[in-house]
């Protein structure tokens, strides 16, 4: 058992940390948000140059063949900066689906382009009615002479408005909530019949609602075995949750540091407010939440590639419960301890709070994961 980073991992941590420190001040972030895509295309190119966009991919696909710890390092840094770029959508989710289920031809075509920064992709999976049920897919795909025809609607597609390529889930058989019968399709975002409505989200990022009417997809653009996508979907959702755990951790650490700094500098009644015991205890409770969250982000990284899917899902749900609770508590405390300044859009602390809040709704909220963990028997076997 050891918690040491390797030499390469430490270098990655330093370089990403430096990049975020230099390029993600509050003012810079505000500017990126005003770019047409809602994030910085320049930084995206820089991530590509640094090798971040191909991190988990095989070397022959332009990647670094890195594991979950490397992803954790990158996401933690992005969390500190409240980065706006579509790393989760393009690299973790779409890249993950292609990496895990793509044919050799699909991988060879798409992964190097993602790694190089020229292809943005988004996962069009959740639907208006599906909430957090990963197998609730009403979109349909029916056989056509030379491929498939997709119909339906997708909601909350993260960075769906700027993506070049969509990975769309659709049902080829079974009932709406069946695990069987789901397939994944690679769809050009500009294909006829794809209608996108992009919108900003509460946390300053972007998403899209996507309509599909009679969208034609060639047979070679089916991703993985048609009808058998559910285990893959669950696995990639877990990859996303592990990545989000790290992102949340970075944001929690930054929010806590910022708050403690504020307690030392803000004066009332002639003294720094950090000299008041009521506020000290809140700051310590935040630290406890932060350290517990760090432990569970590590746990998620360790378990995300676990071969036993039941154990993996339990571990990821457990980590998610801790992360979400810590994030909510740290976000709310950070605003409270800042007082009025915590309420203004012109200061970063409120933006951390908003990001925690948004993250809670991704791939299952706290109650969803607590119920899933309990249903699966929990983490400790009974005596």
């Amino acid at each position: 058992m050891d918690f040491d980073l390797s030499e390469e991992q430490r270098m990655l941590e330093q370089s990403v940390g430096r990049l975020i420190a230099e390029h993600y001040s509050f003012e810079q972030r505000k500017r990126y948000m005003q770019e047409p895509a809602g994030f910085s295309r320049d930084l995206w190119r820089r991530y590509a140059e640094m090798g971040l966009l191909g991190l988990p991919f095989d070397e022959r696909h332009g990647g670094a063949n890195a594991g979950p710890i490397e992803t954790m390092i990158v996401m933690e840094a992005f969390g500190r900066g409240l980065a706006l770029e579509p790393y989760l959508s393009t690299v973790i989710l779409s890249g993950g689906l292609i990496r895990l289920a793509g044919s050799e031809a699909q991988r060879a075509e798409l992964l190097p382009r993602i790694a190089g920064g020229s292809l943005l992709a988004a996962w069009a999976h959740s639907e208006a009615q599906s909430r957090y049920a990963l197998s609730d897919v009403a979109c349909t795909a029916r056989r056509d002479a030379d491929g498939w025809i997709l119909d339906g609607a997708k909601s909350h597609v993260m960075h769906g408005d700027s993506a070049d390529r969509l990975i769309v889930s659709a049902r080829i058989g079974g009932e709406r909530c069946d695990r069987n019968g789901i397939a994944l399709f690679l769809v050009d975002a500009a294909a006829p019949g794809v209608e996108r409505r992009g919108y900003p989200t509460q946390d300053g990022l972007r998403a899209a609602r996507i309509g599909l009417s009679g969208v034609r997809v060639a047979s070679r653009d089916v991703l993985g075995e048609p009808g058998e996508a559910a285990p893959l979907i669950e696995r990639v959702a877990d990859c996303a949750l592990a990545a989000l755990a790290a992102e949340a951790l970075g944001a929690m650490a930054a929010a806590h540091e910022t708050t403690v700094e504020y307690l030392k500098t803000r004066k009332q009644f002639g003294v720094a407010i950090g000299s008041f015991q009521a506020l000290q205890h809140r700051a310590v409770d935040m630290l406890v939440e932060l350290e517990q969250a760090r432990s569970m982000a590590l746990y998620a990284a360790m378990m995300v590639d676990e071969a036993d899917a039941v154990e993996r899902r339990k571990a990821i749900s457990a980590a998610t419960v801790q992360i979400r609770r810590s994030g909510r508590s740290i976000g709310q405390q950070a605003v409270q301890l800042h007082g009025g300044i915590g309420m203004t859009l012109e200061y970063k602390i409120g933006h951390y709070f908003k990001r925690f809040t948004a993250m809670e709704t991704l791939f299952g909220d706290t109650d969803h994961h607590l119920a899933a963990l309990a249903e699966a028997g929990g983490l400790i076997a009974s005596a």
Partner: protein
Amino acid sequence: MDLRFTPEELAFRDEVRAFFRSALPADIRRKTELGQRLSKEDTVRWQRILNAKGWAVPHWSVEWGGTDWGPVKNYIFREEMQLAPAPDPLSFNVSMVGPVLIAFGSEAQKRHFLPRVANLDYWFCQGFSEPGAGSDLASLRTSARREGDDYVVNGQKIWTSRAHHADWMFCLVRTDPSAKPQAGISYLLIDMKAPGLTVRPISTIDGEHHFNEVFFDEVRVPVANRVGEENKGWTYAKFLLGNERTGIARVGASKFRIQRAKALARTVMVGATPLADTARFREKVAAIEVQLKALEITQMRVVCNARRLAPGVQDPASSVLKLKGTELQQATTEILMEVAGPDALALQPEHLWGSATEAPIGPEWAPMIAPDYFYTRAASIYGGSNEIQRNVIAKRLLGL
């Protein structure tokens, strides 16, 4: 980075597990499992079995009977002991007075006391708290004035755990009343049989006798029984606070309670459904398990980091251990209380001691549930209350 145990660590875990399986006397195991109280004889017997194996004080230096296990193996050892479940060796001996003697005691003191401390030939109690000095320990007033080769001690200690079993007390006394509170304190080893020393029991809310008051009336203590320098006792007492904080989380003990709660909940019916199958119970337990897993990893982080930190530097993660550890100990006793429900109600102290001649009212496991819940409230009070911990963390770690 690898959070799993190495093959060597796993082999060590198996070795420890096998030892506990064969060496732990069945009656002691049963009592620990049921949460029954151990007699003095039980505690002594078990610690001597451990000591015969060379495992009573594994975290001490090899020179004084410890092992070269290092933090990870010590951690594994402690976890396995709590999961066996075996009683802990007496913490006043092995985690408190022993390490202080090793760090600050004279050669003669080490040679005399350490083997006896390890073998529980001497049972130590801790004389720190006083009626006017609880969280504000430095305001203690028990005095020791020098007369020739003796100190003469006068005053009173309170909340002294197991003083009624003890042969010796490590005790903080005021040797310089004119100095600042922290600067005038010395650390003495006091023979509990010394003339002028009286022990009076205090009954606690679990109906038990854990605590005592100890009165000193002109008690003579040889100067040779002072540890370290005169008026430096505060430093030695504080050394303990930074020492062995990882033991305080008691993750293994909380895990064991969860295991039990889940098993017992299968036998308790809510209408036609076992309590264990209700969503509310399962989610409540799962929520504790999540925090316990996080704490377990936090503890392993502290354990692994300890190898790298300079002496006196505290790992921020260690601050979680006492706060979260005690909260979860309390939460797990609460869950057991809820599982037992009305079965916890009958007051049956004879079953706490395993001295009953009649079968208990209700299930065999029920009589211990409420006393455990009541007594575990002390966990967030002793060893520096959780509020004091927060003060200390705010100052030392956050710089507030």
